[in-house]
């Protein structure tokens, strides 16, 4: 009996051991986990004042691509590229034609009866009148074409790999190259940290280029002289987030800008002056860490966004 104290001590230890083992066994279960103490949270910036939202999502078009790549609208007809196909769709979503391509394009542009598309450093022109495809002289190996802009006399391509814009004649002759370095030193040349580098010519024939690293939209002469620019770097609704945004932009019929961002995925409109106007699609419309959707607009200012994650074209109509 002199060991009574020890016995009690041992029993107590045995109980502790059992409790710890049972407790450890029951821990780490999915419904008992703790929230991430190191959460990287952008929730605050996902909330958007509803009064700023000027668009409403109406329909989705299933495009049936495994890897959707790009969208363009010309004369109120949608051209959607993905896999190694371009699908021609009317504004109601009815498929009216399909073009099979020799490559999987990364971007496309339609002007008159020509479809320009690019894959890596190769640039192609498809002629809709005689259904022929021709390839232009490929760019150098590091080149990566992310966007094409075209009007009757000039074709511009954005070469993200070499951080430059290349100007071509309609026949495919290289006319000039510029890297956007402004002479007055107010802005740096094109800073392209990732493969997003968009370029457009608006209805007034002005060439606009995104400088994603500067969060700016820059207007250049066709010769490559900076004419004007506007920029806004901020996580907040009115700015462009992350290291390099906007990823895509397009013009509405009246010359206003529509921008699409990655990271904090959102689509917004800006006035002709570059002043923030409103939101088309808030971040909660997209999956977390989703890709920036490629965007295009029709003549009635409806916006068509190619959602790379859900693999559909989403249509947003202005509400006012």
């Amino acid at each position: 009996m002199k060991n009574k104290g020890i016995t009690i001590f041992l029993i107590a230890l045995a109980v502790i051991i059992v409790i710890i083992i049972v407790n450890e066994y029951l821990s780490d279960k999915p419904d008992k986990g703790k929230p991430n103490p190191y959460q990287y949270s952008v929730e605050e910036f996902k909330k958007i004042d509803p009064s700023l939202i000027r668009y409403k999502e109406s329909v989705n078009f299933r495009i049936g691509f495994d890897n959707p790549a790009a969208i363009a609208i010309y004369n109120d007809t949608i051209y959607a590229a993905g896999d190694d196909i371009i699908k021609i769709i009317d504004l109601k979503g009815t498929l009216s034609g399909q073009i099979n391509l020799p490559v999987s394009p990364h971007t496309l542009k339609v002007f008159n009866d020509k479809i320009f598309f690019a894959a890596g450093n190769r640039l192609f022109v498809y002629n809709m009148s005689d259904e022929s495809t021709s390839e232009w002289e490929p760019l150098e190996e590091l080149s990566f074409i992310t966007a094409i802009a075209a009007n009757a006399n000039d074709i511009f391509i954005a070469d993200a790999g070499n951080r430059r814009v290349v100007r071509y004649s309609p026949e495919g002759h290289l006319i000039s190259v510029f890297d956007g370095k402004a002479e007055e030193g107010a802005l740096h040349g094109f800073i392209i940290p990732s493969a997003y580098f968009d370029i457009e010519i608006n209805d007034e024939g002005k060439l606009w280029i995104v400088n994603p690293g500067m969060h700016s939209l820059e207007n250049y002469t066709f010769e490559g002289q900076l004419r004007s620019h506007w920029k806004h770097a901020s996580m907040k609704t009115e700015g462009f987030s992350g290291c390099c945004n906007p990823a895509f932009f397009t013009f509405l019929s009246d010359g206003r800008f529509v921008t699409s961002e990655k990271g904090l995925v959102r689509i917004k409109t800006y006035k002709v002056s570059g002043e923030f106007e409103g939101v088309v699609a808030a971040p909660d419309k997209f999956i977390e860490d989703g890709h920036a959707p490629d965007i295009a607009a029709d003549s009635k200012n409806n916006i068509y966004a190619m959602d790379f994650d859900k693999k559909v074209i989403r249509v947003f109509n202005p509400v006012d």
Partner: protein
Amino acid sequence: MKRKLLYIFLTFIFCITALTSYSQQQRFPKPEFSSGYEQPDVVTPEPRSGGFEYLDVAVLLVVLSLAAWFALRKRSRQGILWLSVFTLVYFGFYRNGCICSVGSFQNITLSFFDAGYSVSISTLLFFLLPLIFALFFGRVFCAGACPLGAIQDLLIVKPLSLPKWLNKTLGLIPYIYLALAVLFAATGTDFIVCRYDPFVGIFRMDAKFHMIVLGISFLLMGMFVARPYCRFLCPYGVLLSWMSRFSKWHLTITPSLCIKCKLCTTSCPFDAIDFPVNEKEIVQSGPGTKKFIVYAMLIPLWIVAGAFVGERSHLYLSRANQNVYLAELLISDPEIKNDPDNIDVQTFLESGKTMETLVEEAEVMRGQFKTGSMIAGGFIGLVIGLTLINTTVFRKRQDYVPHRGNCLSCGRCMDYCPVEK
């Protein structure tokens, strides 16, 4: 260099194929610097391997050989003591308790059931060497080469003798532990022996608080109940004791003939010395043949009962598997999908895996658990039956001898024996 290139190549292929949508970004060239900036290398320190793992095997082999020599030939408790100090320092505090033989059977099990996993030779040797030594020399691994044993052995203060029934009953726990560990390892669910290793946190001087408490509790308990983990939990000890029972040689208490002086009777802290059998007692209680036959006939019943219990508990056991648990959770509580803080659920929802796939996987896993639990239950039933049979068998014994299955070959008893060579 070639390997490295191959690796880079494979990574590259992986980037392109698995992440086509990202591939352009992955391959995107970095800025060109005009200021002569040189990009630093990514520092990737090599793991401790490339022959070093075989150093551990060699150390184990040497320690085992020395332990066998000390226990059987040199008959030196002192030697075994210093050996266990070395083991504690090297395998425990220096090598941080991984890899150890005790958990290695889980790796072997997993390699049989998971086609994608194969065991490394060093792990296999860690599993095998102590068992081979046990087959020839008894559990010398426990005496000198096991860091878990060493830390407990050095802290024995006042060992109490446990009642026989308690010893026997607690002695069943390692079999249950072994059966469960094999079940969990075979289903790829968990390595429970490693997870509940009470001393590894002490070796590393770093662990979750409650695991440190667990280790200290075992050590405190070990002051009075010698080596509690070894005797009443260690699943590897089960395998070792099987081997040791039939070992070719074994440590003996006396160097020549036992004079029945009884000096050694209290020397063993582990109650592992078998006393001479009093023939009169046997006569009094009867030869036990009848009991033996009854118990032998009960064995199939024990197995069936064990399998039945296993079958009954497979649902519960299968919940140790994260997939099964997650599937059940999502079915029983769909609301949890709305909890943004639940990492597992949110990760599943974002992974793009469908509920159907998850449920299917969980069902397959449950099926494996059903079979596995029944086998494990049957095994435990068999062990209980055999333990009962054992209580009816009396071996005629005139000397004081170590129990070959339970003796840890620590050599304490040798010092008590007055007989000279």
